[in-house]
């Protein structure tokens, strides 16, 4: 009960934290602040004494306890080597670190990191600390914090918290929190309880898709009690059935997500290569430029990664489109109708662009921050959650595709592009400026590659090699889908993505890739013009 009381008092106390921060320090200079001893105790604790030191801080009921433990969990507690004072590190980058007094919150200015000795924390302690903090948060009046805390309690229940948890369960709780806590308690009971508690726990856990629940049941199957093992086994089998559906849905999602990345990377190429017939080996580097634009934008707008990302969409398009125009004007226009030379020249450009980025920016990858609203996942159920960044990319790919279709089908530019690619001489004699159309088309394709780069910056690393990783895949998708057909690119990208993800768990990543390539080779043998071949006279050109 001791810990419960202190937890409750902490809850009340946490409400007072704000007041405390404003008010003068509670302890006069002459009186020894008990926090000092608590922190020194934590800093001195050997790994074995850590539990007791953390418990002492929780039990003290000190309103600042939460902030101390947070700082400890985040690796921010350090000891001044000279004075022995425990301090909180506010900024730990560079040679001089900003520190503050954990007792008063007073900023103590900068200190050389040589003077600081970190209070050690490792995974095991952090895991326990997360449990302790989650237990505190369960009493929060903020339903969001309470829910997260209940989530974190899974697998963290031990004999010290079981009683307060049961008391909490006797109270009125939001359904989601109650559900989680019941599961968490059941997992503990299945591991530690008596025979009856174990049987009850299995009933609770039956049907749960949570991985911790499965882990506990798996352990019970391997346990000594044959009756418990048998019912745990039955529970597992029923769970396994449900999981199958979820796994299938997950694979489909993975496939669509990989497919949408492929579509994004390839759709620009579908225009420059597919429609114009230019083999542009620098396509990958145009993607890279888009990704670097995102990085640059985030550097310009520090602290606002979301806004920077949204602004990067037009900016990435423009940067890549301008680079595309430069490439078209300086090289490609002189190589019209000479595919081999175009291939070699653009390959050279791709190497130049890569090395340019390496020399001017850095050979190292750049860190692009994922905005808050794009990280984490959309939880459907315990076994199925859709990662948000990829969900956005799927949506973005579809929007870009729809936009391109509109441009090609409904605008003057689209009409002219189609006219020029079908019959250049005829189009020119009808008064269409073929050279202008060439520039615009190439700019459009390049700009779309830039858009792909903006999206990819949220999935993979932004570095000089980014483009290389996508160029082969892009050509693969365009050829498979049928050169000159945007729908083909969409279908081909999604198909290849899904096939790859279906094969991968079964054959391994390396073999899956090889199998997809072999499949495409065989397919092209049968249908040289891809999934959706162009028909009619246009196809002959």
């Amino acid at each position, binding site marked *: 009960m001791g810990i419960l009381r202190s937890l409750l008092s902490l809850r009340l106390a946490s409400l007072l934290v704000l007041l405390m921060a404003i008010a003068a320090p509670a302890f006069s200079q002459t009186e020894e602040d008990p926090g000092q001893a608590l922190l020194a105790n934590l800093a001195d604790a050997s790994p074995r004494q850590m539990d007791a030191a953390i418990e002492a801080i929780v039990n003290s009921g000190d309103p600042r306890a939460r902030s101390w433990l947070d700082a400890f969990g985040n690796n921010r507690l350090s000891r001044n080597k000279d004075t022995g004072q425990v301090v909180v590190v506010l900024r730990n980058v560079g*040679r001089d670190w900003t520190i503050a007094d954990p007792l008063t919150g007073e900023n103590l200015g900068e200190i050389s990191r040589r003077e600081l000795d970190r209070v050690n924390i490792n995974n095991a302690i952090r895991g326990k600390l997360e449990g302790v903090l989650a237990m505190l948060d369960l009493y929060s009046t903020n339903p969001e914090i309470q829910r997260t805390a209940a989530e974190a309690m899974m697998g963290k229940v031990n004999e010290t918290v079981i009683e307060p948890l049961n008391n909490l369960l006797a109270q009125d709780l939001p359904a989601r929190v109650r559900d989680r806590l019941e599961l968490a308690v059941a997992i503990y009971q299945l591991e530690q309880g008596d025979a009856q508690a174990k049987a009850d726990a299995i009933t609770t856990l039956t049907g749960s898709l949570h991985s911790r629940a499965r882990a506990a049941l798996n352990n019970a199957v391997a346990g000594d009690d044959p009756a418990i093992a048998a019912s745990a086994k039955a529970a597992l089998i029923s769970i396994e059935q449900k999981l199958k559906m979820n796994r299938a849905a997950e694979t489909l999602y*993975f496939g669509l997500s990989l497919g949408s990345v492929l579509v994004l990377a390839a759709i620009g190429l579908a225009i420059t290569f597919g429609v114009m017939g230019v083999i542009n080996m620098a396509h990958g580097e145009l993607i890279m430029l888009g990704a670097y634009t995102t990085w640059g934008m985030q550097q310009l707008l520090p602290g606002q990664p979301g806004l920077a990302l949204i602004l990067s969409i037009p900016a990435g398009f423009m940067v890549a489109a301008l680079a595309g125009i430069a490439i078209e004007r300086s090289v490609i226009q002189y190589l019209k109708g000479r595919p081999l030379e175009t291939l070699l020249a653009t390959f050279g450009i791709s190497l130049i662009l890569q090395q340019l980025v390496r020399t001017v920016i850095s050979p*190292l*990858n750049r860190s692009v921050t994922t905005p808050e609203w794009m990280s984490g996942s959309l939880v459907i159920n315990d076994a199925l959650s859709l990662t948000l960044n990829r969900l956005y990319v799927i949506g973005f790919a579809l929007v870009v595709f729809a936009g391109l279709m509109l441009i090609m089908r409904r605008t003057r530019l689209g009409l002219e592009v189609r006219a020029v690619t079908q019959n250049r001489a005829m189009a020119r004699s009808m008064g269409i400026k073929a050279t202008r159309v060439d520039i615009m088309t190439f700019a459009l394709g390049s700009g779309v590659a830039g858009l792909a780069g903006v999206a990819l910056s949220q999935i993979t690393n932004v*570095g000089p090699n980014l483009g290389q990783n996508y160029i082969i895949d892009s050509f693969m998708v365009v050829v498979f889908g049928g050169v000159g057909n945007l729908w083909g690119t969409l279908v081909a990208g999604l198909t290849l993505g899904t096939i790859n993800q279906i094969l991968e768990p079964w054959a*391994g990543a390396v073999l899956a890739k090889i199998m997809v390539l072999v499949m495409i080779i065989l397919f092209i043998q049968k249908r040289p013009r891809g999934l959706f071949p162009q028909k009619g006279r246009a196809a002959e050109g």
Partner: protein
Amino acid sequence: MSIKKHVKLGLSALALSVSFHAMAAEDPIKVGILHSLSGTMAISETALKDTMEMLIEKQNEQGGVNGRMLEAVVVDPASNWPLFAEKARELLEKEKVDVIFGNWTSVSRKSVLPVVEELNGLLFYPVQYEGEESSENVFYTGAAPNQQAIPAVNYLKDELGVERWVLAGTDYVYPRTTNKILETYLKDMGVAEADIMINYTPFGHSDWQSIVSDIKAFGSAGKKTAVVSTINGDANVPFYRELGNQGISSSDIPVVAFSVGEQELSGIDTGPLVGHLAAWNYFMSVDNDANYDFIDAWVEFKGDDKAVTNDPMEAHYIGFNMYVEAVKKAGTTDVEAIKEAIIGVAVPNLTGGIATMMPNHHITKPVLIGEIQDNGQFSVVWETSSTVAGDAWSDFLPGSRDLIADWRAPMKCGNFNVKTGSCGASAGEQALADAE
């Protein structure tokens, strides 16, 4: 096209120090630097080239070695494996360098091996590798598997209670050999076949969805699970991102990586990675004055406040100091004399210990386990009580169990079979045979 430059760093020091004038007038000691400055490996190797230039500059400020200045000869093998061999030949034959510091990947080292053996050069190789090699002309200042992989697995097993293992790696020689060693080691310790999952991915793999999902499923079998990652280079960023997005935290399934250092982390938002592990012989965060001095010098040399140091840089620091000590000891830069003098040479490392060159051309190193922090640094959570000597031939591979390397007279052999009592082909001949 290669970028080649001759850096005469000695000149400034020469002007300053009149007393050394007479001796410094001798020919400089030529130090070849064979690291890719362009292509895919430039991401890792550029910093090593800079480290060497800094070390040479510092040494020259102190008057060089034996009164002779040092001169860096930089070539760019452009991440192209055959070009490594050509550039090594150019360094040794045309530039007549006294020693080469270079290479990152094992395949590039294997490509250079026949050349340095044929032309009797000296090569210091600074990166952790899969072992199974000891050449008369190569000094391995990075970690062998027993100085990184095995201690890391011991830490996971003993301190974190891990019973189920995912061995995930990029599909090439280093991860494959390391995982083979680890698999045998784990099985020797009684881990069941079903508790080991091995997964290989291609270079630069960027779509980790289904693999991370597999790892998640593998980890829900009830036993504590950990991932031992030999995933190389760029593929790590999307891998860690996917882990974070699928909600796998370090307290659920910790990942211990052998190829992720400070430099790799500088390209990632490390928030979601806090608590994942890496095993190295050096971390930038090591609390030691020698280390702080090195970092300060590096930051000053780079002119970048955010410049980071990493394990292979420390390896070059050790290797360079060992070479300098050997030259002092031998009183000459003659290759045969250095080979003899350097065995047993001991220099301080940056973590507060001493590195000694062993007769098998590997060095003694402490093994550190660090946890990723939110500032892109590692905090050391565990280290070996003393240094560990590098083992050229693993005890956990059937073919290499009976082999030992000892380059002292009278044995002078890199792969002496203690059962048959015979010495096998040299590492360079082996590399040539494998290539065919």
